[in-house]
């Protein structure tokens, strides 16, 4: 019995030593493809941009729900590749250049970095027009105060702001916003700024994905729905939209990943469910051509 315990302890110690050794990136391993859930605006925008509009997910895809979950997965998975909101991701992951172009806000503005999409709010025009509070908030999103926050957080301002926000002390109430998890972090900061300026107003910002944003705006569950793609009228026939910011979609990999660049064709290959198996890129080293 005692000898048994001794051997177990030694084995456990040995395992721990192996586990704590620094990991080397092995390019012979499979690429772990991460994608978003079906209602995601980021997903539909991304798939459309790389030429796979409306197609199903590739085989072996790992589904991560929400912008934050994608980042988390790439942080801990050395063989993952994913697409995620440029404004949201942190320095804990590595961004790949696409066709030699780095994903920066300048390159997005100039159009060199092609993988980007607008972050919109959708709403029913009549609802907003008939509410001073909602009109005020919508206007706030286009003011210099908002512009400052948008740029600071790493997003691209859609239109140069021309005015400062005028506080209206008569405003009070609650604004409900829900939808895209790409726009959610930015919206939370914008909402906090607005609440600081208009102290009798409370703003609730929840997630759920662009699909939820469309649905909630259409069904009057939320005052504003957030979506992270070009507005598609068929998804919310009674609504209109307004662009809050433009956001790049970064292609991210784990920090120990040795690759730095990927081409748009290679991206399409990796995410394509209909890719011919002879030409399919499935291992990391398949990118070396």
């Amino acid at each position: 019995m005692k000898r048994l315990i001794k051997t177990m302890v030694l084995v456990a110690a040995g395992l721990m030593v192996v586990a704590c050794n620094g990991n080397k990136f092995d390019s012979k391993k499979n690429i772990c493809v991460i994608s978003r859930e079906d209602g995601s605006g980021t997903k539909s925008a991304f798939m459309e941009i790389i030429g796979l509009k409306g197609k199903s997910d590739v085989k072996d895809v790992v589904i991560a729900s929400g912008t934050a979950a994608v980042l988390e997965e790439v942080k801990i998975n050395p063989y993952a590749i994913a697409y995620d909101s440029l404004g949201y991701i942190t320095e804990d992951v590595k961004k790949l250049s696409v066709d030699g172009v780095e994903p920066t806000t300048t390159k997005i503005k100039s159009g060199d970095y092609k993988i980007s999409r607008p972050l919109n709010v959708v709403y029913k025009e009549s609802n907003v027009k008939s509410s001073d509070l909602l009109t005020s908030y919508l206007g706030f999103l286009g003011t210099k105060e908002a512009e400052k926050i948008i740029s600071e957080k790493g997003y691209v301002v859609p239109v140069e702001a021309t005015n400062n926000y005028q506080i209206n002390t008569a405003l009070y109430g609650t604004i409900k916003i829900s939808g895209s998890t790409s726009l959610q972090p930015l919206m939370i900061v914008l909402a906090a700024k607005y609440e600081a300026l208009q102290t009798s107003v409370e703003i609730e910002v929840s997630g759920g994905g662009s699909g939820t944003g469309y649905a909630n705006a259409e069904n009057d569950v939320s005052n504003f729905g957030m979506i992270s793609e070009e507005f598609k009228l068929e998804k919310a026939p009674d609504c209109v939209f307004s662009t809050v910011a433009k956001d790049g979609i970064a292609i991210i990999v784990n920090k120990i990943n040795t690759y730095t660049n990927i081409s748009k064709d290679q991206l399409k290959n990796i995410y394509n469910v209909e890719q011919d198996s002879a030409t399919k890129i499935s291992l990391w080293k398949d990118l070396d051509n």
Partner: protein
Amino acid sequence: MLSSQKRIKTHYSSLKVFSLISVIISLIALVGIIAFVIINGINNVTYDFLFGKYDNTPSIYPALIGTLNLILISLVVAAPIGIFSAVFLTEYTNLNSIFMKIIRVSIETLAGIPSIVYGLFGYLIFVVSFNWGYSLLGGGLTLAIMILPVIVRSTEESLLSVPNELREGSYALGASKVRTIFKVVIPCASSGIITSLILAIGRVLSESAVLILTIGMVVNKVPETFLSAGTSLALDIYYFGSYGYPNEAAATAFVLLILVLLINLLAYAVGKFLKKGGNYSENNY
């Protein structure tokens, strides 16, 4: 010793070693899970996390309120129904036994239904049919049906363990059946009944598959009424874990684990210290 005998002996000795290794692996698994939760969770359990408002930083206060409400609703419904069902099954056994068998089979079947199927049922009847949308009440009622078999089974056991002499003594003194049940049998079985209720609470705490389809997983707002959507501790762990908040997930797991541990300890303590009924059979009558 013949070499064949030796071979047989080694064969069975190695099986013995394998069985000892199995025990160790099981214990390592247990220690591993608990250590994982404690190590990753304990640093993130702050006062703000427990009781603050969920604005920029997550808080499990909505989940705490939601969980309490769920426990309340499910117990209020399942406890009386469960206890009375058990009473019927044990105290009125002279009725047609086919009906008894059907009831018993129903209870066993209910116990075997996967929790996600309960979730689907709850969704179809409370969220859609009754048009309540996602609500704590819907979740609580579904949970009530789910914990019913647990309560019925343990209560039945406790009632059966009450010695018949007590019942007969009560009848001899002129008490009616109902009076006997309420004044003699149930109090005598009370420790077992209370234990089963406490264990049912433990079950409610751990459930999440049912809730994901019935209460809506609204993690950032404290539910206002029973018909509000809400969340629970277990559901929060799923949300935090899957939506990219691993530290909060571990912290919530830590809180939940402690609660589950306390519940189990409570059940054990009640079982030990409230056991007055058993003494009667030891006295000589």
